[in-house]
């Protein structure tokens, strides 16, 4: 009996000493991205490259020891966006108005707020992503750059502009892809909108799956790029492959894993 008590005490001690999450604490993992809620409306984020950023409300003090490019003042009012995907996410969050600069050919942009902004001059075209117009970018005074291009990080750090890599090293699955809105939401104070979007999208997906489940034929499909000497395909766990499967396709590289 005495031994049992000792064992129970040890067990109790171990359980009590474990850092259980406190009430209100939250840590969201979205593929390679993460969002951690801190006190006083602050957030700690991990981007697709594994870099940490701290989001600080404008009326709060910045925690000590952080470099300017590691801190994003929220809600963000001026953002430079590289990809159409991220711009669409911002649109979903009701934050497309915060886009002040984009890369790529202006005529390729179809998102109304960006296309119109480019036409009216409210949104600046920064040139191709491989050779952006840095002078122009500096003049825009962006509070945030959303990009896939890690090579611009040193320059942005030098300028004190926080940069977020919005693409991970491995391919994101469909759920993560949709949930990326929840990763971007804290930047714009749009968490509720993000949740609504995720729920709506997942519900639509379920509806589609329910319909396609009954299909007699599953057309074979691949998603990738064919080059002269190699074929690069999306892995089976990627959002592209999962989307094909959801709409009733037979994804041929289902067993392949890796990056996009």
């Amino acid at each position, binding site marked *: 009996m005495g031994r049992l008590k000792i064992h129970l005490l040890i067990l109790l001690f171990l359980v009590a000493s474990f850092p259980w999450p406190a009430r209100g604490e939250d840590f969201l993992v979205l593929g390679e991205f993460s969002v951690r809620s801190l006190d006083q409306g602050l957030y700690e984020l991990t981007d697709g490259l594994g870099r940490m950023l701290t989001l600080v409300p404008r009326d709060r003090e910045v925690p000590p020891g952080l470099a300017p490019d590691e801190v994003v003042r929220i809600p963000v009012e001026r953002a430079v966006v590289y990809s159409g995907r991220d711009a669409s996410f911002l649109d979903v969050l009701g934050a497309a108005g915060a886009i002040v600069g984009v890369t790529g050919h202006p005529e390729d942009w179809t998102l109304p707020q960006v296309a119109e902004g480019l036409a009216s001059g409210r949104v600046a075209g920064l040139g191709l992503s491989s050779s952006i117009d840095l002078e122009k970018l500096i003049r825009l005074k962006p509070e945030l750059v959303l990009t896939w291009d890690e090579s611009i990080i040193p320059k942005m750090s030098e300028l004190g502009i926080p940069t977020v890599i919005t693409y991970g090293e491995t391919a994101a699955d469909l759920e993560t892809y949709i949930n990326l809105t929840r990763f971007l939401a804290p930047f714009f104070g749009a968490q509720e909108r993000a949740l609504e979007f995720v729920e709506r999208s997942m519900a639509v997906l379920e509806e589609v799956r329910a319909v396609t489940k009954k299909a007699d034929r599953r057309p074979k499909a691949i998603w990738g790029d064919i080059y002269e*000497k*190699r074929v690069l395909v999306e892995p089976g766990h990627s959002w592209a492959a999962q989307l094909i499967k959801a709409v009733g396709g037979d994804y041929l*590289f*289902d*067993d*392949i894993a*890796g990056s996009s």
Partner: protein
Amino acid sequence: MTLLLNQWTLNAFYLAAGFYVLALAALRFERLSGLLLALGFSANLASVGIKLYGSWPMQAPHQEPFWLVLCLAGLGLGVLLSGKRDLVRGLLPVIAFLALYTALFPKSDYLPFPRSRTVFAHLMVLLSGLGKALFCAAGVEAALFLRRRKKGVRPLRPRLFGRLAVWGFISFTLSLFAADTWSYLGWTSPVVWREYIMTSVMAVWFYYGAFLHLYLLQSWSLGRQAWFALAGLALLFYFAYLPETGQFLMPRFLI
């Protein structure tokens, strides 16, 4: 060129698998069976050789099943030459089954990558394949031991399954060290949390580590040790072999 080499790798392996199956079918005709096993081994060797030629100085991912079958067949030939015919008869079904499974479910679409350009990547595949082949042979020999005991016949080689497992443990451990070194050189740390298969590799190592203790301390009877070695086959197949295979691929000559 690469596509061609890839297809030849598979063709040579289909041939190897065919010979192994025929060797199993011709089990009654000992010499013929041995000859077919040798032919299968040669075709298998050609298959891994062509794959290496198409990847060298790098190593293509997920090649281990091909090496595992090669090592098992090599062991089978060695055992045959040493006169342990019953063990070869026990090994052949395993060789034929693994060869067929590998041929039909290969994971051969991955290209080699610059980080695999190190001798440690090659050593890892070879030693791991050899280690697992020895574990398989230990399991087969343990099954033979148990069968003889059940029939009331005195086992011929009561300690052989233990020795095979110990040699397997040595080879497997060295393969892990090669993997650790490669991992450090390529990814900064001896342990990299990228692949879920690392958990099953550790599980296999601990399992055979436990067997090594049983073998050395002799705290269990030989019968229980044999059951332990036999059960290791299931662990190996599900956790260490299947993750290295892919989805069903119909051989091109059948399409």
